[in-house]
Each structure stands twice: as structure tokens, then as C-alpha cells.
């Protein structure tokens, strides 16, 4: 099977024109297979895993006792970004691939409008994550890899220390973000150039901006990123609706998680650096969590992540 469609340019040069659209089905089936295999694995291994990790990551009443009932996880800005980006992404996928499966409509205008929305939201996200949130919280670090190694060893029955509780994002989340970031930036970068080839209010059309070969590879990269998104979005939605992950999904809607869930993670950073409202402000926001007393039914932004980290890591050593 040819993964790329080639054509002969008027100058006799073999140039790529598109990906093979059958890759759309490969991606869709791949995504579905992944979730089937994962669901089966989780379903069949739930008992053994529970026994295996018992005591390592279980929630103790002591973990949550010192936390407020609701712990802020995503700022309003981050949630709005996620919603807008998700809608733009779905619109892009629908407008790109419905015509490929036989649903006919004038898709190009809707597609580039959704692309512009995605681009703006991603630019906002980059600035927000860099200057407002904890930029490094979503990037895999050496501890993630060490924990992954521990988990793998233990899964294979080899001796290894128990993996630590993860921070704001587990390794899977971080890796997913990495892949979707690469695919997203590829699709956006190539898509913006491709807008030079269609009628939009932003650019004067210029199909000769690049040579046929460069344009061809741009279409191929755009297509690869696009079909990749089919699998990535499938997997993302699957994890979003999995029962054990629902608290993360809900936090993306409501912005907070309960203290029980928060105590399953190692640290609370990165937290939005927003000040809690006066009504909900913590009495001693710089104090370590063990000394903190939760307010009643209050939504409280936790202390800075560095303070949390130092306290929780100390406890880990205990």
C-alpha cells in the first residue's frame, strides 16, 4: 500500500500530492483497537493490579484530612482554552474527513475558519502555559521515566520500589500532550501556509509561494497530522470517559477536584497562580499542607506548588 500519493508535475518531476486517504481508516481502526485492548487489559488486570499496588498509592485518610474539600486544578482560562480547542479540533476533523467518507458539503471555508480558531487558541495556550501556569508540569521529566521503569519492572514481576504518586499529570498525560502538540503544531504550521492556496480574507492567493515538491510535502504532513488526530482524539475521548479518569474530565469542566482525588497525586503543582476569592481565601496560604486546616465546603487554591512539593516530597522520604 502506498502511504503517499505521488503525481508527475508538468515539469516531469515526481511530487507527493497527498497522503493515501486509506490512512484515515488505519488511524481510526488503530485508535479503536487501542481502546479495546486497553479496556480489556484494565478490565482483566484490575484485581491483580489492585493487589499489586495495594498500600503504595492507596489513599489514606491522613492524606486528605489536611486538604480543603475542593482543590483547584484548572483555571478558567485553561478550561476555556481546552473547550475552544476541542471544538475547533472536532470541527477540523469533521470538515476534513466527512467529505472523504462520502458526505458532501462545502467544507473548505468551515475548515480554515476552525483552523484559525485553533491557531489563536494554541497561541493563547502557549503564552498562558509559559507565563501564568507552571510550564514544566506537562513535560516528562526524569522522575516520570524512573517511575515508569519501576512500574514496568513490577508489572514483569521483578523487584522494584513502588512508583511514586504522580504530580498534576501522569506520564501518559504528558506523553499524550507531547504527541498532540507535535501533531497540532504540524497541522497548524502547514495549514497556515495552505491558506495561501485558497480564497480567504487574510491572504492574497499565491500557489507559487513554494515549489511543487515543498507544497506536496506540506500537504502530506498536514494529512499525516490530520489522520493522526483521528486516533489521538479517539483515545483522548476514551480516557476522558473512563470511570477512573472522570475526575480529571470533571475538573476540566468545573475547575476543581475533590481532596480525595488530589491526595492520589504527589504534588499539587502547577496550580493556577490566581488568588482565591476573599471568601474562600485560605487562612495561611504559604503554610505546608499538613499544618493546614480545610475550610468548610470551600473551594481553596492550594499554596504554591514549590511549597507543596517540598512538603510532600519530605513525606515521601518518610
Amino acid at each position, binding site marked *: 500500500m502506498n502511504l503517499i*500519493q505521488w*503525481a*508527475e*508535475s*508538468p515539469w516531469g518531476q515526481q*511530487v507527493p*500530492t*497527498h497522503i493515501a486517504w486509506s490512512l484515515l481508516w488505519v488511524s481510526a481502526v488503530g485508535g479503536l483497537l487501542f481502546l479495546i485492548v486497553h479496556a480489556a487489559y484494565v478490565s482483566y488486570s484490575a484485581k491483580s493490579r489492585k493487589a499489586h499496588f495495594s498500600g503504595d498509592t492507596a489513599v489514606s485518610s491522613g492524606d486528605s484530612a489536611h486538604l480543603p474539600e475542593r482543590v483547584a486544578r484548572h483555571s478558567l482560562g485553561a478550561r476555556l482554552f481546552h473547550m475552544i480547542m476541542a471544538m475547533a479540533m472536532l470541527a477540523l476533523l469533521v470538515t476534513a474527513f466527512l*467529505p472523504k467518507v*462520502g458526505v*458532501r*458539503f*462545502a*467544507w*473548505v*471555508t468551515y475548515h480554515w475558519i476552525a483552523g484559525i480558531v485553533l491557531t489563536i487558541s494554541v497561541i493563547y495556550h502557549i503564552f498562558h502555559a509559559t507565563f501564568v501556569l507552571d510550564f514544566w508540569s506537562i513535560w516528562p521529566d526524569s522522575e516520570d521515566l524512573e517511575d515508569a521503569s519501576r512500574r514496568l519492572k513490577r508489572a514483569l514481576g521483578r523487584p522494584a520500589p513502588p512508583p511514586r504518586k504522580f504530580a498534576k499529570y501522569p506520564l501518559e498525560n504528558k506523553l499524550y500532550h507531547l504527541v498532540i502538540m507535535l501533531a497540532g503544531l504540524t497541522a497548524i504550521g502547514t495549514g497556515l501556509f495552505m491558506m495561501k*492556496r*485558497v*480564497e480567504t480574507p487574510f491572504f492574497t*492567493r499565491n*500557489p*507559487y509561494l513554494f515549489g*511543487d515538491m515543498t*507544497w*506536496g510535502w506540506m*500537504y502530506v504532513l498536514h494529512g499525516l497530522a490530520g489522520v493522526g488526530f483521528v486516533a489521538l482524539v479517539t483515545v483522548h475521548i476514551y480516557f476522558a470517559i473512563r470511570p477512573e479518569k472522570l475526575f480529571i474530565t470533571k475538573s476540566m469542566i468545573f475547575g476543581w477536584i475533590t481532596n480525595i482525588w488530589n491526595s492520589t497525586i504527589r504534588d499539587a503543582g502547577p496550580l493556577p497562580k490566581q488568588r482565591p476569592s476573599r471568601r474562600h481565601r485560605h487562612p495561611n496560604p504559604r503554610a505546608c499542607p499538613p499544618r493546614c486546616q480545610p475550610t468548610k465546603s470551600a473551594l481553596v487554591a492550594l499554596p504554591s506548588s514549590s511549597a507543596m512539593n517540598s512538603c510532600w516530597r519530605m513525606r515521601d522520604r518518610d
Partner: protein
Amino acid sequence: MAVIHDVIPAFELFQPTTVDDALALQSRHGAKAWVLAGGLDSFDWFKDRIKRPEVVIDLSQVKELRGIRTTSDGLEIGAMTTLTEVVRHPMIREKYAILPNAAEAAASPQIRNQGTIGGNVSQDARCWYYRGGWPCYRAGGNICYADTPTGLNREHAILDADRCVAVNPSDTAPALIALDAKMVLRTPKGERVVNAEDYFIGPGIDITRMTILRPGDLLTAIRIPSTWAGSQFYFEKVRDRSVWDFALVNVAAAMVTSGNTIERIRLVVNGVAAHPVRLTAVEAAVVGRPRSEQTAELAAQLAVRGAKPLQYNGYKVPLMRNLVKRAIRPASAGEVT
């Protein structure tokens, strides 16, 4: 222009005798099959070796696709009926004179003897970049060679271009839309009847096709209702060579007047977009007005609103404007009643 080769690539030829057999063959061979009607579009493709189908399904032996039949509400023309038969049919000439007028404007007598009405409305774009086998959008590529600063686009679209700027070359298509004809399709899911207006699609909808026909579908007949029978018709085609050429722009109008007032009208222009363009805004503007020079002028100005000429086809804007004007104003030279 493409190089014409003497020998076309080999293919497996099927000559079914029924529509069911033809559909079964299409179903069996899928996208590898090519449906052949009169062959005047197909053999260009084959001889240029641009299209190389593995299987050709020749419909010439399917008798049920031929002939013109009267129905309770007008006429039904089999898709394989030749243009000459359409031109000569007495009832069509009497009640739907715009159709033989349009059919007679197509190509040459020899081609009309062989060419079918189904093939005429379903023929592919004549853009030479596309016909020359260049990997343009319509051919599945990612560029329109005609829509570039140096592209030769004198015959191309001024309306509804979306990446591809090819135009629909059919002469009978605007006449059929003016008559509010229905296209009868046989698809794997059964029979489907669509308005002629909806039979044609632009590149925004599907850049590789000019009609709604998909692999496995067959146009079997064209039904013309009696709604516009005996109306005042107008058809005019402007081409580079009067003897034999595709339209630069053509216009078809069916009109019912009461006294001098326009009561109903359908106005269609072709050669300006990838599909025949029904000018509904113009129709709405002129209904209830007297058929006069003023109304014609109004219609002409309205018709070209939104037109975007390319580098070399700016002349199509005044051409279209004037053709619409001539279609509306009283006692035009091209009028057939």
C-alpha cells in the same frame, strides 16, 4: 493540449442489455469501471491515456435507456437518447423548444448523432490543464494550474470557484434546469429522482466530480414536467467558433408572462462556473415587472453581482451581463417560443 495517441490502453469491455445488468457490473467492478454512453468524452480521455479504466461498461445495448416517452406530466427522455433524436422530436420541438435549441447548439451534427443527452449533461470539465493530465485539484492533486497569475484561464469560471476554476461545458444542462427537469438515477440503494439543478455540483462540494453521480450510480432518464410547456423560451450560446465549439457562456430562460408582465421565470447561465448557475436573485427581482429594457438592465446588473474574473476571462462578466439582458428584454433574436 494533450498528445493524442493512436491506440487506447486495453480494457475489459462489457455491453449489458439491461439497466440491472449494468448496475451489477458497476457494483462488481466499483471504481475500476467506466460507464460509456456516446463515448465522445470518454474516448478523449482514453486516447490521451489520462484515464485508464480496467473495465468499460458500454450502455449502447441497453434499450430501456433509449427513447422519448410521454408521461402523465410531461416527457421522459432516456439517458442514452441521442442529441439528434432530442432535436428532432416533434413534441419536444412543440412544447419545450428550448431543449432542441440547446441540443442543436452542441458540437457538430456527427457528434450529435452519437452523443447522448445523458452524456452531455454528465460530461467532464474541459479545462486543458485537467484534460492534459496535470495533477490539479480536479485530478486529485493540490493545485489549480489555471488559477495562477500566468495560467491560461480565458474559458474558466467567474462565479463559485473554490480552488478549481473549471466550468461546466454542457449546453443542454441550463435548458433542462430552466425546464425544471428531474434526473432519474439508479443507485445501489434504488431509484432516486433529483432536480436537474441539484444534479450538478461545484468544486466546493466535490472537487473531483461535476455531478452527484458516484461510482455505482447511473443516470437513466430525464423527466421534463409540463410546468413550463409552451412558455416563452430563450437560449443563446456564445462560442469562439460558431460551427463547433464549447460555450464561452450560454443562457437559458423559460418565462411565463401575463400581458407584458413577467409572472414566472427560470433563468440559468452556464460556462461561468463549475455548475450551471440558476440566477434565483434575478428571477425574484424580475417577477411582477414588465418585460422591458429597464427590467432587462436590472436583471443584467444583478446577474453578475459577485463575479470574480481571473487574469484572462474578464470579458465573461459583460458577456454574461449582456446575455441575461437579451434573455429578459422583449423579442430577442435568440428567442424560441
